[in-house]
């Protein structure tokens, strides 16, 4: 069985047919019943066989938080590390071993608060990592404090009068760091999530996938407008490369260019068909994808895009490091005795 994933060219192919079951461990899953993490775990376990690579060449690295327990439940190699540092640890791992498929699992607090620095630097370097960021807009494992993606005014244990922090939009942050692959999906939409995982796996370099995930204990319903059958089609903008951006329950809404050069949402009836923007995930300039990321309303979730915002080609950091080593060793591997002796010596007899 051969895979079609360019980013996995150097990862040994599996010679056996795999199933989701092969990726389950014997460990008891310890998330709260009803947690969105279960759906994501099932989607990932279900998707992994598609990679077509040997299970022992897959590594999941995580930080701290509910989401970061993920590696314990994947029957691959796994490291549950420390808060916020998974991208750094995964960088050392990925750069050292092109024969591995390296996945990072993180959350909104882990990736954007304590680990914000590592996230943006992994993105700008374009390390060959697939980063799954579960966003539930709350700190769950510490029992309910607001997170860097919580909406302003949120009442939590640490903000009894409402939070004063203006939130991050993770997709905008990633695009600001000029990430080469940025996507968003929803925990409960298995089919969509798996399609995004597939595209991320094909991508050479860092892929950031923000996954809207429900914490039913501390922030239940945070993404309800995007999940309820009554509202989801109305608020959700599904991005498909090469297609006009038209959405809404009755396909009556669309995206057009605004007079100031950015994008805006309009009623299909109010604009000429040729003015409706066609989604271009391959645009070199991240400005277009960034403008898309700004369309959603953080409180109501109205006009929230999901899908792939950006997917461009740039050599991965891993490949560039490898090239330098290959160039350096092509002239002959180093000779230790020559190095130690150097050029400026004297003899004592």
């Amino acid at each position, binding site marked *: 069985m051969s895979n079609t994933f360019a980013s996995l060219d150097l990862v040994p192919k599996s010679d056996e047919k795999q199933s989701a079951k092969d990726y389950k461990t014997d460990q008891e899953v310890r998330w709260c019943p009803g947690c969105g993490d279960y759906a994501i775990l099932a989607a990932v376990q279900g998707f992994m066989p598609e990679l077509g690579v040997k299970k*022992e060449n897959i590594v999941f690295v995580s930080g701290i938080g509910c989401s970061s327990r993920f590696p314990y439940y994947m029957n691959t190699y796994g490291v549950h590390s420390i*808060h916020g540092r998974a991208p750094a640890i995964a960088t050392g791992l990925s750069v*050292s071993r092109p024969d591995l498929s390296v996945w990072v699992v993180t959350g909104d607090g882990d990736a954007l608060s304590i680990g914000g*620095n590592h996230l943006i630097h992994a993105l700008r370097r374009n390390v060959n990592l697939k980063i799954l960021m579960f966003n539930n807009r709350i700190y769950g494992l510490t029992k309910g404090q607001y997170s860097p993606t919580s909406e302003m005014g949120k009442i939590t244990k640490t903000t009894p009068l409402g939070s004063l922090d203006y939130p991050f939009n993770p997709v905008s942050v990633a695009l600001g760091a000029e990430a080469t692959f940025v996507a968003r999906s929803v925990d409960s939409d298995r089919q969509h999530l798996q399609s995004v995982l597939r595209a991320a796996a094909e991508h050479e370099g860092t892929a950031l996938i923000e996954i809207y995930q429900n914490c039913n204990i501390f922030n239940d319903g945070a993404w309800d407008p995007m999940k309820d059958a009554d509202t989801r089609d109305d608020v959700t903008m599904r991005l498909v490369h090469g297609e006009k951006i038209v959405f809404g329950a009755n396909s009556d809404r669309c995206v057009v260019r605004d007079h100031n050069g950015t994008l805006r949402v309009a009623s299909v009836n109010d604009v000429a068909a040729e003015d409706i923007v066609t989604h271009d995930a391959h645009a070199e300039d991240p400005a277009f994808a960034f403008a898309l990321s700004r369309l959603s309303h953080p409180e109501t979730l109205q006009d929230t895009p999901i899908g792939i915002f950006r997917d461009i080609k740039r050599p991965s950091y891993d490949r560039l490091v490898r090239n330098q080593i290959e160039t350096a*060793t092509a002239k002959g*591997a180093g000779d230790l005795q020559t190095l130690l002796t150097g050029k400026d*010596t004297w*003899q004592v007899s």
Partner: protein
Amino acid sequence: MQRTRGHVTKEIVELDQVSIRFAGDSGDGMQLTGDQFTSTTAAFGNDLTTLPDFPAEIRAPAGTMPGVSAFQLHFGDHDIMTPGDQAHVLVAMNPAALKSNLKELRPGGDLIVNTDEFSERAMTKVGYASNPLEDGSLDGYNVHPIALTSMTVEALKDFDITKKDAERSKNMFALGVLLWMFTRPIEPTIAFLNAKFGKKPEILAANIAALQAGWSFGETTESFPNQFAVKPAPMAAGTYRNISGNLALSYGLIAASVRADLPIFLGSYPITPASDILHELSKHKNFGVRTFQAEDEIAGIGAALGASYAGMLGVTTTSGPGVALKSEAIGLAVALELPLVIVDVQRGGPSTGLPTKTEQADLLQAMYGRNGEAPVPIVAPQSPADCFDAAIEAVRIATVYRTPVFLLSDGYLANGSEPWHVPDVSALPDLHVKFADGPNHTMPDGTEVFWPFKRDPETLARPWAIPGVAGLEHRIGGIEKQDGTGNISYDPANHDFMVRIRQAKIDGIAKTIEPLKVEDPSGKAKVLVIGWGSTYGPVESACRRLRLEGFDVAHAHLRHLNPFPANTGEELKKYEKVIVPEMNLGQLSMMLRAKYLVDAIGYNQVRGLPFKTQELMDAIKDVVEGV
């Protein structure tokens, strides 16, 4: 002994050792001048030790005291262990250099002063009320006033270079004078200049001319009645080179990597005085070295740990403030039980402290600076060249015991240099390790399984199981693990067991390290001086000189700070008094007192500089005379 060249005849005086100090503005090229004198002297066969002494600012305003950069070199016809207490010769390129460095010149010493820079304004700038060259304040020294700048400019007047470039060559003039003074050849410096300025022929010619002019000036001036000679020191036969601590440490890591057949992955963030190791390793990609300049200290160690997990030789390099940031990740490395070398080139603290000055005040940070019971082995080199062997030892411990290891160097070792007997590569230790390649445990039902935390009965190390091996898939993390299986476990008895076994693993390293060796030639000493790290040179030097004066004193030096050599307590208890000189307020003293219940007497200084031999002799003598 007489020497004749042209019409000049000057007597050559034999000396057994000399310490010279170059001091000037940061832009005057004093480090380069010192380095050049050093390599010429090393190649001549003298033993030597150097002390670069420079400010943290790259170039503080010209002519100011904070802008003074100095370089001290001590060389001799015997074993030289320190940069010398006070110099025999001081070269002061301007009033600021004179004012800040005069105390480093011994009474009656030779003082070479660049008179051109002693303008009213320059002297006022550093607070001289009157001209020290004229007011008699230098009467206690042998002053050689030389118009270094104008003589250099005059010597270069026929060259097609700017006056500024001509003035910049004055360090070569000064070097020429010093090389003449100590009967050293100028050819090595000419070769060096050829390599450095090969692409700028005019600058090259000017520098060579300035160097020769300085040499000839020494020969002709009446200011120097004689030259000096220092014979080569006896050394074991072999190939030698001069080497600084940071370079030796870098080479030690590469050598260990070759001997372990594990490529280096260095994750690091620039910090003084450790950055040179990152610079150096970046040059050696042909040894498979990957260097990663991380976004911060934490990412540096994180990436190195990730690389160790991948099966590389993970290394991170930093100084004290960086260690503080890395603490949590070091704890993770302890919990994951993966090899990792953490190089701490210590500098003055706390906080930013004294970035370019030396100190030994990170010992307790290395020992205890983590949450929970998180023991980490500590190895400390004792001299610049010893950084090579200490790095190899740190790698040995890290890979055999699957543990992070601290390699505690310091700013003095990092930048100081000494002759190094280049080792024969085939004589270096074999550091090959074996990765896990299959099941290591049989379940009661006969199933063969892999347990990531099943330990080697001898070393107590767990298997190094790198990704890519079928059947060994496992999950590890910072959460407490069940003994054997490595599964998450919150069981109280298991945690107690795991904490103790991690400690026992580190304690067990003592079985593989050399016993503590005590130097007590007369066998009658009642006082033991015990040190660690870069204080070895001054302490050994002080003990030797005290013995020559008829005192009985024993000396021991700790290379391993955790665990200590197994016989440490036994040796300490043989002596009535134990003195512990350290460049901190008593950190090793505290550890020795706590572990062995000995009444260690601390001798402590935190001046950012190595100990002076004389001060140590006085302190030790006080104790010896008291018993």
